[in-house]
């Protein structure tokens, strides 16, 4: 990528970093709170019960399931493992994995707030999430997936969560058969606080990197980016993958590029990292074999690329 060190002003860096943090952290907190509620009050078993028997209908439904699961990509992998254990077909789980971090209320809300009057952005993001998740599910349906699922996906959800998220639980006792409402709320808060701390590291580090990039990029270099549409889409997709930003907060960082980067590249940024990012790639090894993860990455980047190109036709004049 043609990154050229143009300037580094600590004042601009700190103001940029703090402003992105202050704007994004409410959504991180709300996401953690809702995630805790989901963990306790909505079990994967209930989701399985409502899945249609037709595979394509199930894939389509999974692409919209984010509306009931306001989780980010960090929290969705263990649930996907749980769904696989419940014999939910792999294409449905893939559609679920791809769509949930994008097609959910908190992400729609945060993207809408970040882009203000640019209503087209949350619309394109959600539409992209549904379309790409559905297509990814359909493509995976025609791929032989036997042997691509690791044995660990059969482990209990809690164990998955412990292993995948880097948490260790001490003195854990068997849960009571019928926990009281207060107990459930306490568990919910435990999950929420844990989720907040677990995801905040990716968020904060992402902000620091984004602010550094924002501060040091040369405007002419950025203009060079936007003049080359395929290059800018690929670059922003990769940047989004590497930054590992939470889908509930990445819109605020994407917004900072609006003046410099073309609209399709912004949309590619908002889609790629939210579906699978670098940290998620590692998390996915707990439920899928590396070869299948590589296939998923190729599918994701390819679909995002072509969707972003289609966006150029929809919004040829850009966002301004």
């Amino acid at each position: 990528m043609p990154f050229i060190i143009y300037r580094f002003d600590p004042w601009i860096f700190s103001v940029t970093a703090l402003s992105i943090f202050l704007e994004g952290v409410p959504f991180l907190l709300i996401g953690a709170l809702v995630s805790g509620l989901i963990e306790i009050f909505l079990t994967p078993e209930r989701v399985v019960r409502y899945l249609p028997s037709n595979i394509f209908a199930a894939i389509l439904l999974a692409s919209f399931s984010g509306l009931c699961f306001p989780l980010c990509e960090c929290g969705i992998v263990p649930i996907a493992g749980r769904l696989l254990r419940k014999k939910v077909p792999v294409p449905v789980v893939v559609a679920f994995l791809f769509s949930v971090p994008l097609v959910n209320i908190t992400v729609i809300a945060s993207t809408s707030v970040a882009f203000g009057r640019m209503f087209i952005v949350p619309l394109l993001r959600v539409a992209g999430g549904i379309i790409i998740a559905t297509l990814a599910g359909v493509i995976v349906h025609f791929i032989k997936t036997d042997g691509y699922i690791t044995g660990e996906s059969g482990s209990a959800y809690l164990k998955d969560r412990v292993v995948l998220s880097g948490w260790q639980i001490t003195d854990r006792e068997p849960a009571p058969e019928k926990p009281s409402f207060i107990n459930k709320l306490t568990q919910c808060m435990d999950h929420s606080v844990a989720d907040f701390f677990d995801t905040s590291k990716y968020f904060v580090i992402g902000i620091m990197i984004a602010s550094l990039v924002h501060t040091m990029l040369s405007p002419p270099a950025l203009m060079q980016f936007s003049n080359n549409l395929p290059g800018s889409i690929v670059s922003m997709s990769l940047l989004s993958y590497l930054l590992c930003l939470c889908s509930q907060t990445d819109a605020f960082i994407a917004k900072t590029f609006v003046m410099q980067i073309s609209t399709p590249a912004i949309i590619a940024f908002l889609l790629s990292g939210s579906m699978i990012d670098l940290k998620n790639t590692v998390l996915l090894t707990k439920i899928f074999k590396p070869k299948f993860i590589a296939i998923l990455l190729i599918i994701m980047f390819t679909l995002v690329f072509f969707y972003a190109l289609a966006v150029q036709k929809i919004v040829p004049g850009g966002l301004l």
Partner: protein
Amino acid sequence: MRVISLYTSRLLKVAALAGLLGLHLYLLMSGQIVTFIAPSYVIIVKISTVLLAVFMIYLLVTFNKKKETITTGLSQVAPFLPIFVALFYIPTNSAVTTVAVMPQSDQVNIDGFFMGGSGGATPEQTENTTLDFTNENFVSLYNMIYSDDTVGGKKITITGFASLDQRVGKGRFIIARMVMVCCAADMIPIGVICQAGEGMEFLDKNWYEVTGILTYEDTSDGSRQPIIMVTGDKKIEQPETPYVY
């Protein structure tokens, strides 16, 4: 993987939340929050302040709970980073006039300045004989003069920093402000070209209150470009709130 003690883990979490809560409260109570977030979005900062307080109170109430999750590594220290950044932040606003971005729009022409707008004049604005730019009406009046050339000939008063650029023409400069749409990361400079009067001198990045007559001239793309014919100027200190929203 090194696992820290239960007590240290809880203490670090409470400290991180307390620090973030303190940062939020300080920015809200001191009014400095508008340096980072546009006033219309301050409500979301208030929401996170409440949620941080809820999380912290919960951790304090359950501080001695036996069952506990222990976090290791970055999860413990990451929330402290914004606090460190805030500690190094010096509220001089010295960089306000130096932030430059390059909008990609047909309306951009000079050095990344976003010079153009949309939205017609309100009846009151059209009827006024003087266009008096304030912090509150800056963006709406700016949009108006770029979209409605019938206001040409009116007296105009505008405050901003001067940006000198030879490409705007001899004896000309841009009177500009930084406009914040949502947060400091999305700020862009907006401005109007001024034609200095005889003997007048303007210094780059210095703040001025300019008075003059609003005129229009045709541009090569067929649009009408507003130009302020400066009749008077006063050098001023940078305002307490240098941005407009």
